[in-house]
C-alpha cells in the first residue's frame, strides 16, 4: 500500500554530529538527535551535562555568549541549517519559541506580554493582535481566568499563572517548535500538574522539547527521551522503552539513582 511505503515525516529538528564549545572547553560532543513533529521530547541528565546548552543551541540563544560556538556538525530546523548565512535570527526564533526556567513576564500588562512577540514582528492591527492574544491564552488555558483583567500588570499573577503566561507569550507567534527549559522547577506540585496537562494539549499543535531534571516528569509528559551525560548523548529512545528497558549501562544506573 502506498501509505505504508511513504517515508516517515522528516524530523522538525535534526542535530547532526554537533560539537559545541564555550571558548576552549567542549560542552557538547558528537550530538545526534532527530525530533519528530508533534511529539514531546525530553532531555534528561545530571546537572551540567549540557542539556540546557543543547536546548539553547536550537534557537541560537547561545549566540550572545562570548566564545560560544558550534565547532562541528549542524542543526537543521525544518530541513534548514540554522547557521546558514541567510538565516534571519528573528525568523528562526519566530519558529522556535522558548520558555525559561524562571517565569519572566515583562512588567507590562497581561495583554502586552502576550502581544509582545507579534508586535516585535511588526503586527500593528488591533484585530490581529486581539485574535492572537486570545488564541494564545486559550492554548495556555488562561483565557477563562484572565480575560477580564488583560490590562492588569502581569507581575500580579501567581507563579503558575506567570509561567503559563510565558508559555502563552511564546506560542502567540505560532512557532513550530517550543523549547522548554525546566519550566516547572520553580513551581509547586499543583501548578506543575497544570503545566504538564497543558503540555499534552500543546503537543497537538507544536513540537515540544523539554529539559527536565525530574525523571517522573519526563515519564509523565514525553514521547521520546534523550539522556545526556558529560556533553554526550548517551541514549535516545521512546520514553517507555528508555525507562523500562535502557540499553546503556550508564542510563540504567542514572535511572536507578546509583550514579557514581
Amino acid at each position, binding site marked *: 500500500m502506498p501509505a505504508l511505503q511513504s517515508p516517515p515525516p522528516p524530523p522538525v529538528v535534526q542535530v547532526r554530529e554537533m560539537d559545541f564549545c564555550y571558548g576552549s572547553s567542549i560542552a557538547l560532543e558528537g550530538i545526534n538527535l532527530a525530533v519528530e513533529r508533534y511529539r514531546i521530547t525530553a532531555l534528561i541528565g545530571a546537572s551540567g551535562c549540557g542539556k540546557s546548552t543543547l536546548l539553547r543551541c536550537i*534557537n541560537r*540563544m547561545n549566540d*550572545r555568549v562570548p566564545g560560544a560556538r558550534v565547532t562541528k556538525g549542524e542543526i537543521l530546523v525544518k530541513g534548514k541549517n540554522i547557521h546558514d548565512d541567510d538565516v534571519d*535570527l*528573528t*525568523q*528562526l*526564533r*519566530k519558529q522556535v*519559541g*522558548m520558555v*525559561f526556567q*524562571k517565569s*519572566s513576564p*515583562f*512588567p*507590562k500588562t497581561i495583554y502586552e506580554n502576550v502581544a*509582545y*512577540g507579534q*508586535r*516585535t*514582528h511588526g503586527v500593528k492591527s488591533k484585530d490581529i493582535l486581539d485574535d492572537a492574544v486570545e488564541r494564545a491564552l486559550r492554548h495556555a488555558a488562561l483565557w477563562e481566568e484572565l480575560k477580564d483583567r488583560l490590562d492588569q*500588570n502581569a*507581575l500580579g499573577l501567581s507563579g503558575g499563572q506567570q509561567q503559563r503566561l*510565558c508559555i502563552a*507569550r*511564546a506560542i502567540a*507567534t505560532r512557532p513550530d517548535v517550543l523549547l522548554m527549559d525546566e519550566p516547572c522547577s520553580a513551581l509547586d506540585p499543583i501548578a506543575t500538574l497544570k503545566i504538564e496537562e497543558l503540555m499534552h494539549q500543546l503537543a497537538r499543535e507544536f513540537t515540544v522539547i523539554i529539559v527536565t531534571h525530574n525523571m517522573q516528569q519526563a515519564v509523565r509528559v514525553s514521547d521520546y527521551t534523550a539522556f545526556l551525560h558529560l556533553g554526550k548523548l548517551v541514549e535516545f529512545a521512546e520514553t517507555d522503552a528508555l525507562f523500562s528497558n535502557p540499553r546503556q549501562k550508564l542510563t540504567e544506573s542514572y535511572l536507578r539513582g546509583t550514579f557514581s
Partner: protein
Amino acid sequence: MPADLNNDSTPSRPTLGSLLLKSQRRTFLGVDKQKAIRFFFASNSSAAVIVLVLIMLFLLREGVDFLPTYRHELETYQHAGLEFCDLVEQPLAEHQQLCSKLRRVLSASLNTITYQARSRRDAAYQQMRDVEEETRLQRAVLTNALAEVPPAALEKLAQLRQELLTATQLAVSRLAVPPSLTPSEGWQLKRDLALLSPESAEPPLVLELLSAAYIRVDTEAHASFKPLVEAVEAFEAAPDELHTLLNTLKKHARETKALVTDFHSSGKGHGRKDPIDFASRITPLTSRIPELSGRIEAYAQRAQTAAASLPPQAGTPQATKMLSEMRAMLPGHLTEMRAAAGKLPQWSYEKRVSYFKVVLAFFFGDAWITNSSWQDFFGFIPLLVGSVLIAVLAVLIATPLSIIAAIYTNQFASVREQDFIKPVIEFIQAIPSVVLGFIGISVLGDVIKDVSHVSWLQWLPGFPIQERLNMFNAACLLALMAVPTMFSLAEDALNNVPRAYIDASDALGATKLQTVFRVIVPSARSGISAAVLLGLGRVIGETMVVLLVAGNRIAIPDFRSGLGVVFQPAHTLTGIIAQELGEVSRGSAHWQALFMVGIVLFVISLLVNWCARAFVRRFELSKS
C-alpha cells in the same frame, strides 16, 4: 558560687541550672566584650544621623529668630512712616520707566536726521584713534623725552620726532578712508593726521569741522522734532514738585528710623519697648497728606498734558510703536498714583504686623533688597524663581544627554568603548565647579552671545541676547555637572533589569533595538526617574557655578519674553548665601534671613531626595 536554691544538691556540685545561667564572660561596668563591640559599631553608624540632626538644629537655631527680627524691622518700617512714603514712592517709580521709553523714542527720532553727520564725525575720529594706536610706541617715547626735567638734547628730540613722523605716515598710508567721507575730506583728513604730534592739543581741523557740522545738524533735529522734545521734557519735569515734597517726608521718616536703630544698637532697648514717641514723630507726615495729595493730582495732570502734547508720529516706525506703548501704559500709572493718594488718609502707623504677614513677606515677597539706606526687604521669590528655573533647565538639558549615553553604554557599546566612556563621564564629576565657572564666563558666555546674533537664528525666543552671564549659560554648565550622577544611576538602573527579561525578549525574536526600547528601558523607568530626580537634587544645591555664571541680578525674571526668559540673568538661593553671608554682621536680620534661605534649601533637597527614594522603592517592588 551562688547559694543554691535547690535543696537536693550538695554544696560541692553546682546544679545544672546555675551552670547554664551563669555567664562565663568577664564584664566591665556591666558591659562585656560582645556588647562593647556592638556598641562601637552602633555608635559609628549613628554618627551620621547625629550630625544630620545637629545640622538641622543649628540651621533652625540661627534661622528661627528671623521671624521676630524681621517683624520688628517691618514694624519700624511702618511706625517710622517709611511705609507711608512708599505708598507714593513705589507707584511713582513707573514714571522712570515711562521716561526712559520716551528718551529712547526721542533719540531714535533725532537719529533719523543726525545719523549721517554723527557717523561721519565718529568715523573720522575713529581714524585718528587708529593712527594714534598704531604709533603708540613712538608717541610714548617722544612724550617721555619731552617731559624729562633736564630737557633732552635737541638732536635726540628731532630724531624721535622724525621716527614718529615716519610711523605716523606709514599708519596714515595704510588707512582706508570710510565711504561716508567725501574724497576731499578723506584727503584732508590724511594730510592732517600725518602731522599728528603729541604736542598739538587740538584735534585736526577736519575733525573740528565735522564735529561742528554734527552739532549744527543736531540742533536742527531738535528744532524739527520740537513738539516731541518739549513734550518729553515736560513729562520728565512733571513730578519735580512731588519729588521735592516726598524727599522732605522721606528724610523725616529716615530720621525716625535712625532714632530707633540707635536706641537698639546702644543696647538700652534690650527687651524694652521703644521709648520713641511715634505718634508725635508721625504727625509731620500725616499733616501733609492734603498737600501730598494735591501734588500727586498736579503731577497726574501735568503728565497727562505732556502726554497729550506728544506728537502722534515719531521719527521711525519702532519709535512710533514705543510711543503708543508708552501712551497705553500711562492711564494705568496715573490711576495707581491717584489710588495711592486715596490710600494716604486711611494709612495708620499703629497697625500690628502679624507673624502671618511676616511669613508672607518672606515666602512671597518679590524683592530682596539689602544694605539699603531706606529699608531692607527679604523677599524670597526672586531667588527661588532663579534657582528653580536654572535647575529645571539644567535637568532638561542633562536628561536626554545622560539617559541616551547610559543606554548606549549599557546596551550597545563594546567592552572597550565602555571602558572608555564610563571613566570619562565620571571624571566630569572631578572637575572643580569653580573651573567650570571660568569656562562659563570666558568661553560659553561669548559663544552663546555670538550665536544669538547670527541672523538666521533670530526666530528663536529671546535672541539676540544682551547678557553674557545668564540662566541658560549656568544651566548648561550645571547640566554638565549633573550628567555623571544621572548617567551612573541610569546605567545602574539599566544594569538591574533582570537578565530573564532580556532572554525572554530575545527568544521571542526581538531585535536588539526592540529589546532595549520595549523591555529594558521601560523596566528601568523608575530607576531612570530616580536618576533624574537625584540629578535635580545635585543641581539645585550647586553654588559656585551659579554664583559665577548666572549673572546675579536679584529680580524676578521677566516672563513676558516667553521662553527667552532663560537668557536673562538671575540670582539663586545658593548663590545669595555664598555671596552675602561673609559680609553681614552676625545675628542681624540679614544674617538670619540667609539662614532661612538655607533652611528652605535644605528642605527642598530633602524633598527631592525623598521623591527619588520613593521612585526607587517602587522600582524594587515591581522587580520582585
